[in-house]
C-alpha cells in the first residue's frame, strides 16, 4: 500500500487510485506511421529497472489523472531523473 501524492488531494493511500500504466510514447498520427511503428507504440512500454514515469487515476478521490516517477526496485517516489524532460 503505497502513499501517492495527488496534485489536488495530497498524500493518499494507493487503494484510492487506479494504476494507469507507464507513460509511453506520444500517440503517433495513425495515418502517418508504418505498421511496425504502430505495433511498437501499442505494445512496447518502458520497463526500466529503476525510475519509471507512470500514470495514476485518483478514482476514489478527486478524479484527477497525474503522472509520477517511481523507482520500480523500491517503490520510492522519486524526482524527475536527470536527462529526462
Amino acid at each position, binding site marked *: 500500500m503505497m502513499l501517492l501524492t495527488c*496534485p*489536488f488531494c495530497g498524500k*493518499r493511500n494507493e487503494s*484510492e487510485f487506479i494504476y494507469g500504466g507507464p507513460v509511453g510514447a506520444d500517440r503517433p498520427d495513425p495515418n502517418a506511421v508504418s505498421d511496425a511503428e504502430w505495433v511498437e507504440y501499442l505494445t512496447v512500454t518502458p520497463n526500466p529497472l529503476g525510475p519509471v514515469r507512470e500514470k495514476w487515476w485518483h478514482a*476514489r*478521490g*478527486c*478524479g*484527477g489523472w497525474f503522472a509520477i516517477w517511481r523507482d520500480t526496485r523500491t517503490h520510492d517516489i522519486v524526482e524527475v531523473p536527470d536527462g529526462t524532460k
Partner: protein
Amino acid sequence: MSYKVNIARQSLNALFDLKGSPAAILTWVEGALPALPERPNSRTRRDALDLYHIGRDHWIVRAPLGLEGRLETQLRPTDCPADISIVRVSDTLTFFRVTGLQAADVMAIACPLDLHDTAFDADAVTYSELFGLKALVMRCEGGFEFAVEQSFGDMITDYLTRATA
C-alpha cells in the same frame, strides 16, 4: 454494541455538481452560492447552502432537499454556457452520520484517511475510500458524515452493523 456511537442514514439532500473554471462558475451563479472555497478539499457555507471543493475545477453544492427547486431555478443547469457543467445529482449520493464518543474508532475501521483533527479540520471535505468504496467524507456535529453512491447504501449499512456488533 462494541462501540459508543450512533449511526444514522440521512434522507436525500439537494445536490448539484459544478464543473468549470472558477471564473466561469462565478459569472454564471452570481450570488446564488457561498464563496468558492479556496483550499482544495474544503467547504464554505452560507445559510443552508454548503459548497464543497472536491476536485480541480469541480464543486458540489449541497442543501436541504426543500431547496432543490429553488437551486435548480437559480443554477439553470440546462441553460448554462458551454464552458461550465451543472448537473443535478441529488439522488446519486446517500449520506450517513457516525457520531458519539467513539466515532473516530469506527471511522478508522472504515476509512484509511487520517481523520485526526490535526490532519482533517472542521472544514475539510474530501473524496476518499470507505469500506472500499469511493466516499465523500467530512466532519459533522459530534462526529463524521460521509456519502457513498446511493446504490451502495444498503451495503454500507450492512458493514456498519458488522463493525459495531
